[in-house]
């Protein structure tokens, strides 16, 4: 098994784990972390394929996209965290209300 | 020599796995943070070894980045949780 195959398989599993987390977790905080894990899976997928296409150096285009993606993902996570804190401050809720 | 470096890396990674027990058990936030610090140090050691054995010296820059940021989380915990935290873990 090649190096990139190990990591690309792990990336698929990570993505699904994150997706399951978004559905299953109740707390806002955990949902945000689940999206971060999903994002980690996507980035791992990109970088592992960049390693597959390596000649003298690994494919730089996915690397650049992942770096951009990391910064965008962290901005989004910061916004989501701020929203959830605000919701908690205003309503005391820490998770979505359950439909009866 | 290569096999030796890989063994050392594996050993350090298994060490991290062992330390995870403390992250899980806590009981205080400070305990968990300490263990994370240990992971950071172990990660630096793994990066230095990888830099040596792959011949990729730029990996040292990753270790430096980890290194200078290691103190940030501790200072944040100490300063932010200083007074009036709403409870939870002591």
């Amino acid at each position, binding site marked *: 098994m090649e190096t990139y195959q190990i990591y690309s398989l792990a990336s698929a599993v990570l993505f699904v784990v994150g997706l399951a987390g978004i559905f299953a977790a109740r707390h806002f905080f955990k949902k945000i972390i689940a999206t971060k894990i999903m994002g980690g899976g996507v980035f791992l997928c990109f970088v592992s394929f960049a390693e597959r296409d390596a000649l003298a150096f690994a494919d730089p285009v996915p690397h650049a996209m992942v770096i951009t993606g990391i910064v965008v993902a962290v901005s989004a996570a910061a916004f989501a965290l701020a929203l959830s804190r605000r919701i908690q401050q205003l309503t005391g809720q820490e998770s979505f209300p359950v439909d009866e | 020599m290569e096999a030796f470096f890989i063994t*050392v890396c594996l050993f350090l990674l298994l060490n991290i796995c062992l330390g995870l027990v403390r992250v899980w058990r806590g*009981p205080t936030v400070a*305990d968990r943070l300490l263990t994370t*610090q240990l992971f950071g140090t172990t990660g*630096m050691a793994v990066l230095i070894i990888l830099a040596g054995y792959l011949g990729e010296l730029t990996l040292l820059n990753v270790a430096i980045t980890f290194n200078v940021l290691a103190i940030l989380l501790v200072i944040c915990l100490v300063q932010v949780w200083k007074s009036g935290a709403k409870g*939870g873990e*002591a």
Partner: protein
Amino acid sequence: MTPAEIVTVMLLVAGCFFFLAGTLGLLRFPDLFCRLHALTKADNLGLGLIALGMAVHIASPWAALKILFIWLFTLMASSTSCYLIAKFQRGRAPKPSEASAE
């Protein structure tokens, strides 16, 4: 094996020993203050020995300088963070009502 390699192997094995000792201490010691003691051994000596061993192996002055900086910063960061965490924890010593939080 060349002498340099033997030195590297010995230093790395010694470094690993300190990392293992630090982790075991982290797991086995009863409270935070003891664990701090165990941890700083791993931080200072474990990383220091491994860094020294790899500096011998890489044998490039620029890399050796970087490794030296990594070790010095770690020394500084780990000793001060040890102090800060200990002080922080003492200031928050759990009251009897909170002691059963976990």
